[in-house]
């Protein structure tokens, strides 16, 4: 058992809290967007679920940011600027080509770095660009009576709505890719188990990963 797990308890707790809320928000959000469709949730019910889960998700996000500032987990999201393009190319080439040639995985998760550069960029984009926009625009909906009617000649509420719907589509896209990418680990479910139990099969044990790669 490693002294500092790659996925400490607070992170795992946040992650599954966040994932559950995100699923609730997806179902209720789609129900509102396509309101009137029979097999979706009723509008009133969807509004109630969406408002409550959205508020909880926003609070969770604030906790996530604070916890990453206080712990050293935050550094895992920052790509190394030097050789960034090369790293990107190596990782993308592996996913698109190398993986089918049975090439060794160019990246090994360990305490020094638990994400490859593509994971870093997608987590960074999702958590520090899309999530704040999503949360702010959601807050904009909630507080819409307080907003000015127009912003630069365009209805403020319309801008809020477009930001919200666009960022939510992009985050669903992120989720789709995210849930697939996590199956590319030492085994199909190694990453999933790591996020559940905190134990990562490859943690700082280079020998094990070498054995697998050969």
């Amino acid at each position, binding site marked *: 058992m490693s002294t500092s797990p790659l996925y400490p308890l607070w992170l795992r707790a946040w992650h599954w809290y966040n994932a559950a809320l995100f699923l609730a928000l997806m179902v209720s959000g789609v129900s509102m967007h396509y309101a009137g469709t029979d097999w979706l949730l009723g509008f009133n019910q969807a509004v109630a679920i969406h408002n409550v889960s959205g508020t909880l998700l926003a609070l969770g996000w604030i906790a996530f940011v604070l916890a990453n500032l206080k712990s050293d987990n935050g550094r895992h999201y920052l790509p190394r600027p030097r050789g960034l393009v090369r790293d990107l190319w190596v990782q993308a080439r592996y996913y698109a080509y190398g993986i089918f040639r*049975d090439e060794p995985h160019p990246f090994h998760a360990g305490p020094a770095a638990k994400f490859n550069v593509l994971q870093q960029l997608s987590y960074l984009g999702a958590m520090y660009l899309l999530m704040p926009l999503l949360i702010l625009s959601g807050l904009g909906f909630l507080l819409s009576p307080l907003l000015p009617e127009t912003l630069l000649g365009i209805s403020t509420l319309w801008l809020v709505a477009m930001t919200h719907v666009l960022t939510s*589509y992009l985050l669903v896209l992120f989720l*789709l890719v995210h849930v697939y990418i996590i199956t590319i680990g030492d085994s199909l479910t190694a990453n999933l188990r790591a996020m559940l139990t905190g134990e990562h099969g490859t943690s700082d044990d280079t020998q094990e990963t070498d054995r697998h790669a050969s």
Partner: protein
Amino acid sequence: MTHHCSRPRPTRWLAGALLALVTSLLAPVASAVETARDHECLRCHAMSTLAYREPDSGEIRSLALDPQRLDHSVHAELACSDCHARGYGRYPHRAKLADEQLGCVECHADDPADATYRLDRIAEEFAASVHASSDHHKLRQFDCHSCHDPHAFRASQVGDDLGAIVRRDNQTCLDCHHRVTDPLRGSHAWLPQRDAHWAAVRCIDCHTPTTPQASHQILAAADSSKRCVACHSRDSRLREGLYRYRLAQDRAEHGWLTSLVRNDAYIVGMSRSPLLDALSLAILALVALVIALHGYGRYRLARRRKENDR
């Protein structure tokens, strides 16, 4: 000096004289309202304080008109005497004149515009509304003028600002139903974002049955719509009612581009952009397809590896 007592109603006479005095003092103010200067009557009736006390009930009744609103009303072109024909030469006017019945239908029955407004239909709808069927004591004298002040009324036009239409329309209801806005009354507490709704939709959008034109059949509170999807859906009733103005204007002015960039409130479930949705769903489907193919490739690889191991 003593008062002349030959007149039967000395107090009235006195009041008239006083009124004339006040009027002459205020005349510059009245005539400063340039747009209404043609209306001789407005020399008095533009004074916002002009009023009398109802002898029976003791209620103060305003006799004032807002000249600006009159000037913007459908009836701005008319001379006062077109409707208020006889007996106004005397000051103050005789009391019984106040009882004259001036209906809308009397003038508008032969109106070519009647073909669009269908006054007979309006009369039927009104007869079925709570305003006609309730025996509430405040509704005893309810008629067209209770809502449509003939000195201010103007139907909404294509091109009018939606917010202004909503505000003007709802004020008509709130003039009597002002207690609805009392924060301690829960009649609209069920409605999420109550104030946002009140600023964006008309009372009648929920409190009348859906008809292509604004209905005059005001429903009782219990019969009014609480169905969110009546508005929040693709075939929103707002498209028939309130947004009719907007849609006609959009089409006339800008064409398809306005379906992307709007100046109106976004209505969840109604004003979603079909283009954005189609594009997003297409991208999601494409990514799902790539993932499926990628997964299949990995599956084949794993099977091959297993066979090699054997």
